[in-house]
């Protein structure tokens, strides 16, 4: 039961072959057995989950389930505010912080009947690509416990991969859904910026932060996206465009679809196995009737550097509120206000967060603003223009998700080599375009590899449709890790 996708699970509920409580208990048991080693969860909301499952049971008994997600046991990245449930962002700074409100996405999934199993581990404040920067514990990759699950949403990715949740939500500011999805062999979708409300997502880089689903398969990703997408009066950047029934539109396949394969996404130093696997996947798509043409996105090499100006700048501002005054950590014994805040921030933030706050503070400083932040915004425009031009010729872009497979814990101590892991992920965040990572094979060592599709703004439907066609034509989703 812990290995099936949500749509099969809720189908089983409808046929009375299982119940939300039975499924929830099975997941909770598996968490209890395996998570000590895996480290995917920061909080397990056992009682709450069982209560929600019992409510769902009653609805199924009455023949009135709320929809295709009713009774689905999910994991939420600990950066999403959950009313009455600790939300730490993987940081000492927010250890024990209990939000008085639900993020819009949480409220929507709860209203759809979803059962929260707990909160997933993450790199502190979503800054990292390995979940090694969680202040509480690292998460391990269920395919190989010596390796990282990717990050920053490593907890939810690992949980879904290992059968510790049927699906979940992560956030993607610079690849943080898609890169761990690729490393853990699950589907990870980053929707168009504004497609999903950010209200209640603890901000890292406001113009880059996206919320999206982790799923066992593309159908589940479509179902989860539909539940969380759509206008929200609490988020001024949220779009009002109607939300299509993504799951209903998966079937047509890729026949006649024009795919662009960007030269800049096959770079020197890239893992040969990854490149080979991705190129093979592209051949599969061609075989399914898609046309594939080489395209160029020339600004790509600058995207990552630009990202590391914009994201830290916004982070330095967003993280200014953690000063020990209102909530979260306050270091005791300070003589005055300045000392209280300085010491609280010194103790509460980890090294990577401090590094980015300093970087961001610097690039916004008077005299440097134009040279860094102003210029980065111009490059961001160039990156967007590349994609606009490409989408004049092709319907979708297909590319590798990462340059390599999951690396070992402690392998990337140098921040820059860690940052490089997101080189193929960052452009979709910079442009706000929808992108998905879908499993496309395994390395010789048995580690998952991800295939990325990037679509036009608000065209999640095509992204999902292509991913679905590929998924249905290949055997990868049947392979599950056996962490214990």
């Amino acid at each position: 039961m812990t290995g099936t996708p949500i749509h099969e699970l809720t189908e089983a509920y409808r046929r009375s072959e299982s119940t939300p409580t039975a499924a929830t208990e099975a997941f909770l048991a598996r968490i209890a057995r395996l998570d000590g080693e895996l480290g995917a969860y920061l909080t397990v909301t056992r009682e709450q989950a069982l209560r929600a499952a019992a409510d769902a049971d009653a609805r199924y008994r009455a023949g009135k389930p709320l929809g295709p997600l009713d009774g689905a046991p999910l994991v939420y990245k600990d950066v999403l505010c959950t009313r009455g449930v600790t939300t730490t962002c993987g940081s000492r700074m927010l250890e024990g912080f209990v939000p008085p409100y639900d993020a819009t996405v949480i409220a929507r999934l709860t209203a759809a009947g979803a059962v929260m199993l707990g909160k997933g581990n993450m790199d502190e404040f979503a800054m990292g690509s390995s979940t090694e920067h969680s202040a509480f514990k690292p998460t391990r990759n269920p395919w190989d416990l010596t390796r990282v699950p990717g990050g920053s949403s490593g907890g939810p990715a690992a949980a879904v991969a290992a059968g510790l949740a049927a699906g979940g939500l992560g956030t993607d500011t610079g690849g943080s859904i898609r890169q761990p999805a690729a490393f853990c062999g699950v589907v990870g979708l980053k929707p168009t910026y504004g497609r999903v409300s950010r209200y209640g997502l603890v901000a890292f880089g406001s113009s880059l932060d996206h919320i999206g689903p982790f799923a066992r398969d593309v159908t589940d990703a479509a179902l989860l996206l539909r539940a969380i997408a759509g206008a929200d009066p609490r988020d001024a950047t949220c779009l009002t465009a109607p939300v299509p029934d993504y799951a209903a539109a998966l079937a047509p396949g890729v026949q006649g679809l024009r795919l662009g394969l960007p030269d800049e996404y096959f770079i020197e130093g890239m893992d040969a196995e990854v490149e080979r696997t991705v190129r093979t996947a592209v051949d599969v798509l061609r075989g399914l009737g898609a046309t594939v043409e080489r395209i160029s996105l020339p600004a790509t090499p600058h995207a990552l550097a630009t990202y590391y100006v914009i994201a830290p700048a916004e982070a330095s501002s967003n993280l200014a509120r953690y000063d020990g005054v209102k909530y979260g950590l306050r270091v005791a014994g300070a003589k005055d206000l300045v000392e209280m805040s300085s010491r609280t921030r010194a103790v509460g933030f980890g090294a990577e967060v401090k590094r980015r706050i300093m970087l961001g503070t610097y690039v916004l400083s008077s005299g440097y603003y134009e040279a860094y932040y102003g210029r980065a915004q111009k490059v961001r425009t160039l990156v967007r223009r590349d994609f606009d031009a490409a989408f004049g010729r092709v319907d979708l872009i297909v590319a590798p998700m990462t340059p390599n497979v999951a690396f070992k814990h402690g392998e990337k101590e140098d921040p820059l080599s860690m940052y490089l892991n997101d080189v193929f992920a960052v452009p979709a965040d910079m442009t706000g375009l929808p992108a998905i990572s879908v499993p496309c094979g395994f390395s010789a060592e048995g580690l998952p590899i991800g295939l990325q599709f990037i679509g036009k703004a608000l065209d999640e439907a095509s992204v999902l449709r292509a991913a679905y066609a590929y998924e249905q034509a290949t055997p990868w989703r049947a392979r599950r890790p056996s962490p214990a």
Partner: protein
Amino acid sequence: METVIGLEVHAQLLTRSKMFCGCPTTFGAPPNSQTCPVCQGMPGVLPVVNRRAVELGIRAALAFDCRVNAACRFARKHYYYPDMPKNYQITQYEEPLAEDGHLEIEVDGASRTIGIQRLHLEEDVGKLLHEGTLETAQASLVDYNRSGVPLMETVSRPDLRSAEEAAAYLKAFRAVLVFLGVSNGNMEEGSLRCDANVSLRPRGSRELGTKVEIKNMNSFRSVKQALEFEVRRQAEALAAGERIVQETRLWDADRGYTRAMRSKEYAHDYRYFPEPDLVPLTIDRAWIEEIRAGLPELPRQRRARFVTQYGLPPYDAEILTQSRALAEYFEAAVREFPQPKVVSNWVMSELLRELGADDEQAIRSSPVTPARLAGLLVLIEDGTISGKIAKEVFEKMRRGGEDARAIVGREGLTQVADEAALGRVIDQVLARSPRAIEDYKRGKTAAAKALVGQVMKATGGKANPGIVNRLLEEKLSKI
């Protein structure tokens, strides 16, 4: 030396809810009772612009003849202070709501035009409460009720040439805002706050001298006194060959001087950047025109019209245009009783006896409505009651909320105009006043006035004074 002053005025906008969340803006509520995750700066919250605040901002901008920008943008201004929950303020920086306006001021009968450089919207911060004084407090508390309250900041050009002009600017500015319903302009409650940039330069020079920013002026009096002090301080320093230091100084109203803030208190790099949580605000032309069409006549225009249209003395016009409610009251009364100066006298002396000229609420809800005032004036006009009785009737209307006619009828306040009845009263008065009659015969006209007084007294003030005068004269001439 020539004084150069520019003013930055912050006005709280009269919205029901805050700038970026739905919390109420009521003043004086228990600490932190008017807050939510958004205005407390909780993790994960997002701002949403209050459209009404933008509308009020545009209203003010149009009144000051500013250019309302087709698109404007919010920005984050960073500094650490615990009254500001996010440690940044959402304000406007490079792309304000409106620019390039002006305001007319009058000092000593001469009018001058003062430029307004920009007008923008922002959120207010909370308030710190210290246990004891700031220096000795063992703990401080934060009240976020005010956090997120909408403010409009207006920056004047350095066109003001004296403390008096600065005070006149602030008064005129306030009058416009109050008149438009943009702000209640209450300086004690902090709804209107003002900072000034002051510098001196040799007369005729076009370059500006080193400026000093003055803060903490919490009343019109403070503004005038603080700026007078600062101008004197700078003049003396320059005369002594010293250089003016660019700094921020605080006005100490109790001690009557400005003192330099510690440099730590203001040496900020605000690290402005566009607020990524809000999309740029595009202001539709049609919306601006709609707001323009709904603008009431401004106090200055109305004052001039009151003089020309109603033939009122400038003094009357000035008072009657102190607020929109008062001006409207006056005009409504004049429509029913078309003797403007008479109405003006009654409004100024009676209506404003117990309420302020700018107390919009009290004027609008006064039981003596414009129609009732007009009704009273009609009774004087047609001789039903005397002016003296009318004042009593006015008081009764103020308390009871009835028509003048009803009060006069019920209480028998009608003037006695029955000549036979009055003749009998006069006869009685004359019968007991032989001395007065003698005085009158010897040419003392004052004696006649005393007799009239006695007749009025005997009739309880209800006698028609004109008839009494005539009858008395007739009778006296026959004696």
